[in-house]
């Protein structure tokens, strides 16, 4: 099956005061329809930058080289207006800090509404109905009330779910989730992961799941890409990574995680 997104030899450099710092040094991967690619790595490994580069979200101080083939187009060679139309509708992204991602001066319904208005021709009533639908789909109670609220009045978990709902509302081909569980507590994390798994099962949307948490990746990804310092350290299924990691970095990562889980289990048994 042809991949929905194919990234070849992606290079991203940061230009600062006449100095060039390479951030991503030649990354290639593919994402297939209905499957989830997990990108694993510590902070600074370049995983978020990879996603932002593909979506065209980096500003002038970054230079991006390589190819990102989507529906026959190279996203990196695309002009900004074409990319803008794709963003939010065909390729959607979920960000790390839902608390700060919404404009504090506008209500939720206005922010959801402007996204719909931008990408689809809907009347005000249709937009309102769709917003309610989206919230209900994300298991949010009292959607009418939530829509009238300002972002600071809602919890991080709720905002994260609204973000996910908004991303899925226009039925995108690709959903990129950039550390969606990092900024929220463990219980909400569980709820949010349930949503992601449901989305994966019910729709044919391809997913890219970026995180540094091995356990989160284990729940959802079909293929895993391990990144370290801008390079791909390992790739394979989760099982392959856990047991037969090739790169010393991955090995270290897995060992540490196993040690932590081991201690956790030991503590549970003792208690």
């Amino acid at each position: 099956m042809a991949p929905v997104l194919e990234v070849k030899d992606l290079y991203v450099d940061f230009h600062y005061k006449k100095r060039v710092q390479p951030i991503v040094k030649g990354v290639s991967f593919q994402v297939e329809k209905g499957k989830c690619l997990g990108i694993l790595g510590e902070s600074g490994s370049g995983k978020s930058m990879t996603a932002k580069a593909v979506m065209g979200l980096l500003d002038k101080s970054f230079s991006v080289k390589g190819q990102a083939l989507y529906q026959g187009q190279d996203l990196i060679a695309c002009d900004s207006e074409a990319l803008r139309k794709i963003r939010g509708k065909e390729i959607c992204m979920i960000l790390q800090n839902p608390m700060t991602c919404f404009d504090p001066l506008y209500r939720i319904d206005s922010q959801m509404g402007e996204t719909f208005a931008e990408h689809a021709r809907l009347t005000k009533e249709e937009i309102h109905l769709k917003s309610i639908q989206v919230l209900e789909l994300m298991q949010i109670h009292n959607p009418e009330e939530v829509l009238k609220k300002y972002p600071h009045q809602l919890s991080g978990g709720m905002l994260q779910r609204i973000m996910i709902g908004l991303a899925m509302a226009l039925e995108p081909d690709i959903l990129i989730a950039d550390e969606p569980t990092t900024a929220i507590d463990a219980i909400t994390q569980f709820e949010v992961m349930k949503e992601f798994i449901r989305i994966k099962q019910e729709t044919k949307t391809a997913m890219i799941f970026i995180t540094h948490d091995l356990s989160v990746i284990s729940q959802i990804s079909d293929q895993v890409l391990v990144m370290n310092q801008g390079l791909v350290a390992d790739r394979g299924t989760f099982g392959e990574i856990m047991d037969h990691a090739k790169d010393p970095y991955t090995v270290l990562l897995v060992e540490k995680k196993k040690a932590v889980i081991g201690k956790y289990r030991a503590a549970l048994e003792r208690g």
Partner: protein
Amino acid sequence: MKSYIIKRILSAVPLLLCISFLCFVFINLIPSDPAEVALRVRQTPIITEEAIAEVRAELGLDDPYLVRYVNWVWSCLHLDFGVSYTNPSRTVLGELSRCLPATAVLAMTSLVFVIVLSLPIGFFCAVYKDSWFDRLIRGIVFMTTAMPAYWIGLLLIWLVSIQLDLLPTSGSGSVKHLILPAFTVSLTYISTYIRLIRNNMLENMKEDYVLYANVRGLKQSNILIRHILKNSLHTCIVAIGMSVPQLMAGTIVVENVFAWPGLGKLCINSIFNRDYPVIQTYVLLIGTLFVVFNLLFDIIQCIADPRLRREVS
């Protein structure tokens, strides 16, 4: 939020008291005896001890300090600010009211100029950061902050009135007379506000919600105006509000240059004539305006910010 408003109003009261006390102390710090000064200014030919004593009684200068202060505050609240030393037939209130409208007109017109010019210029400087436009404006802004307001006024008079003969040089009476002085006053503040708006917008551009708006594929113009500009203006509300009293106070020099018959001219003349009650009341007036406007716009900013609005949920 109500508690915030009440707290804020309450905190303004001691400030007003301090200012009023300073103004009151003001008159009593002058090296010479106020009664004697009053007599001299009224050009009394012979100043005798009895005359001084009489004036002292008239001005109530013999009562204890605190009593005088309380009396003074009381009369101020009744808008009785005493009589002018130079011209005892005129009350201070009368003098100030005579000159206030002219200054208010000048200040308001300048405010309009400031807003109309600094908003779009600051906006585009931020949007096109480091472009030739941005750099040119920043250069101009830099130069204007180094220029004394009166020099700008003089140059404008020479250029526009004398060379080009477009507008009258001084005085008041028509809209034409208003343009040059208003423009001169506004020039000194435009630079501040251009910088303010530009910096605020640049700060807001780095915020997460801008990234998310881009992620959602919103149009640039939409993001810039509906989100970034609105947030930037929001943080500037107090600064913009404070511009009114600042402009009222800032007209002093320009009024002198353009012979504009407003409070500034009155103030300068009073300084030369040693008309202390007028000066004292003028300082009190401006100080009070500052405190009141600061308070008012703090409250407005609080109301406008949804985060502060609903404390009780």
